């Protein structure tokens, strides 16, 4: 492929020198926008989301993948779906998830005894949701973290998080091949623990 150089002449023509034609062109452009936005239904080209206006429900404007405040999902029996695998707290770049595991009883997985997210530290990256192997943590509430009076109020515990939660539709235990045997080889870049 040959590279061609396009030469642009910077010489000013007479119509550039007297400014007026260019100015008129500009005025026509802005005037067109003005009339279109003032006089057409729905304000023409104005795409502004009417955030905060009284008769506007902000959530209608949020995209499908909007990341809101976290929630913890429930199992069929209403207990917490999380198995305290620590994936989320490991991947969290802000390191704002604190999990203490306990025995769930029987032959089952662990369960979090406490599950705390410091929403002030959270950078709303959504990695925790990506990392979770069992659809236990989600950020699909479309709710913003409310401003709080104290820092402590912004630290959400297990019950706070579960209050927003519902039953997950995912099948308990998953379907298909066992991910432990079918798992690809670990990426060497992730073997090193930065902590």
């Amino acid at each position, binding site marked *: 492929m040959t590279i061609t150089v396009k030469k642009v002449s910077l010489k000013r023509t007479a119509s550039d020198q007297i400014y007026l034609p260019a*100015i008129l062109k500009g005025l026509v452009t802005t005037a067109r926008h003005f009339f279109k936005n003032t006089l057409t239904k729905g304000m023409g080209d104005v795409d502004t989301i009417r955030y905060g206006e009284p008769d506007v429900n902000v959530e209608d404007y949020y995209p499908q993948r909007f990341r809101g405040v976290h929630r913890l999902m429930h199992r069929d029996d209403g207990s917490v779906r999380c198995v305290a695998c620590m994936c989320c707290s490991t991947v969290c770049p802000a390191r704002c998830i604190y999990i203490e595991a306990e025995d769930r009883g029987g032959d089952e997985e662990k369960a979090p005894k406490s599950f705390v997210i410091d929403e002030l530290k959270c950078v709303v990256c959504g990695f925790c949701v990506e990392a979770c192997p069992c659809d236990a943590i989600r950020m699909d509430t479309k709710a913003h973290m409310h401003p709080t009076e104290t820092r402590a109020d912004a630290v959400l515990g297990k019950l706070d998080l579960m209050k927003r939660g519902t039953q997950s539709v995912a099948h308990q235990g998953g379907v298909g091949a066992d991910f432990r045997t079918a798992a690809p080889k670990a990426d060497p870049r992730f073997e090193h623990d930065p902590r």
Partner: protein
Amino acid sequence: MHASFFATLLSVLRRGMGPWSALLLPWVLTLGACAKDPAPEQVSVRAEPGSLIFHPDTEPLPIEVVNHGKRPVPVQGFQITGNDWSSFSIVEPINGQMLVPGRPLRFSVRVDAETFRGGTLPSAVQGETRELGPDEFREGEAVLAFRVGEETHEVPLTFEDPSWVTATLLPGLLKVVLLVLGFIMPLASLLLWQERKQSAMMQDRVGPNMARISLGGLTIRLWGLLHIATDGLKMFFKEDFIPRRAHRAMYTLAPIMALVPALVVFAIVPFGDALCYERLLDVLAQADVDQCAAGRGGTPLQIAHIDVGLLFYFAIASLATWGATLAGWASYNKWAILGALRASAQMISYEVAIGLTIVGALLVYGTLEPHALVHAQLDSAWGILLQPVAFVLFFTAAIAETKRAPFDLPEGESEIVGYFIEYSGMRFGLFFLSEFIEIVFVSALVTTLFLGGWALPFEMFGASGFAAPWVAQLFFTLVGLIIGATGVAVWRASKHARFVGATMLGVGVLHVCVALFSLMTGWGSEVPHVVVVLVGMLTWGVKVFVLCWLQLLIRWTLPRFRYDQLMSLGWKGLLPLSLANIALTAIVIYALSAAGTIDPEPTDAEGEAAAAQLGATP
């Protein structure tokens, strides 16, 4: 570019109107079907002016008897009767003659003021009399009568010596209230909002729309118009900050020095022809209005009718520099003083260009007095046609005088914030307001100098009304349709604009109703004086408003100049061009007068008109 602009405009109107356009068709058809000849005129011979008013120092007043009909009629029997008939006399003896249409009979009437001097006067108290001093005059009246065919026409002659209060103070106050409180202040505050809203619309944003009042459950948002009030309130309640080392007196004086000249220059702007107090409901001829404009029986709609009007403007406008300079100097702030220096240099540079561009117009129209200048334009052609170059140069230099983008270096909000950087609250508000008042003033001056002042184009509206009833019908229909369609489009554009849109639709419908009324009655060519005055002031206001809109459009379209570019534009661009404009205008006028096509020294309005008219097509 242009084609696409109009295409967009059309599609905007189409989409905005939608089904509404179907409603227009029957109306247009009705218009076509009902169009009929105007009613034949009843009064064909008129004296113009219809009444003469004399003051003690009045020269003999000219009067014309004009035949507006189609056939010649005999006029005769001129005589003066009434109480004080002996004090008035017709200067040239006139005989009865056939009055041919288009050839008015001209003569003048003189008053002997001495007969009214001194003497005794019945006082307001019953039975008492009041002695008049040697400098006082009593009032007197007589009637000039003449016969047209069998009909007798009477022209009242009045002699009066109005006091300073009735001749100067009260009309002055009336005009100040009309102009400043009724127009400038509302428009300037509207511009505060319009600046934000219009820039938003031009940049595909929403702009201010949240200020609202709730009246019994009904929330009125008025398209964000209420932000005018909230802005004002905000300015009043902000901290009034004065820097510690500022010069307190000067610091306080500066905003006033900025605001006062901006308001005072409005004194010379004519915002209408003239107002005749006692004949508001009569149909007047131009001669009547001219008599009122001379201060007899009325007042010109211009606060100060001074012969050197435009020089007065230059004198006062130069003072506006003081506001900016003082503010910068007194603030004790390096950014402020930089802004002040820029402001003074810029304003002085562009004043030269402004002065020289106006000279071209002066050469053509031969007067410095704005009211006469507008009349000269109406007699020939608008300034924008005769002096297009001067129009562009003047508009450019005048925008530079307002210190706004693309000439906003004194403010330079991205670098030095400008000469008012230390000001807060209402002190800053005054600077802000005076900037907008200057915008209004520039628009008013351009309207006066180049856009025919208060007049509608194509001579469609004169002192007695529209040129013909069909002109009135066409005018009101078109204006009504434009306003109404815009109203509908605005209603549909945004929820918050519904009230504004509905109001505009109402105004449009009102116009169409007037057109319908005119269609049925043949009304339009003879309009009461008060309506003529209102239409004139409205026309003037609309022109000024459109120019303000244009200035905001320019301000939000063009980027800022660099300072050396600014100076070279002023001194190397506008100045030589305006000099060339003067030279060219002078040469054309000289050539035309040498060729004998125009009178070299126009002595009256007609001569000027002829000069101007010929200057248009060299």
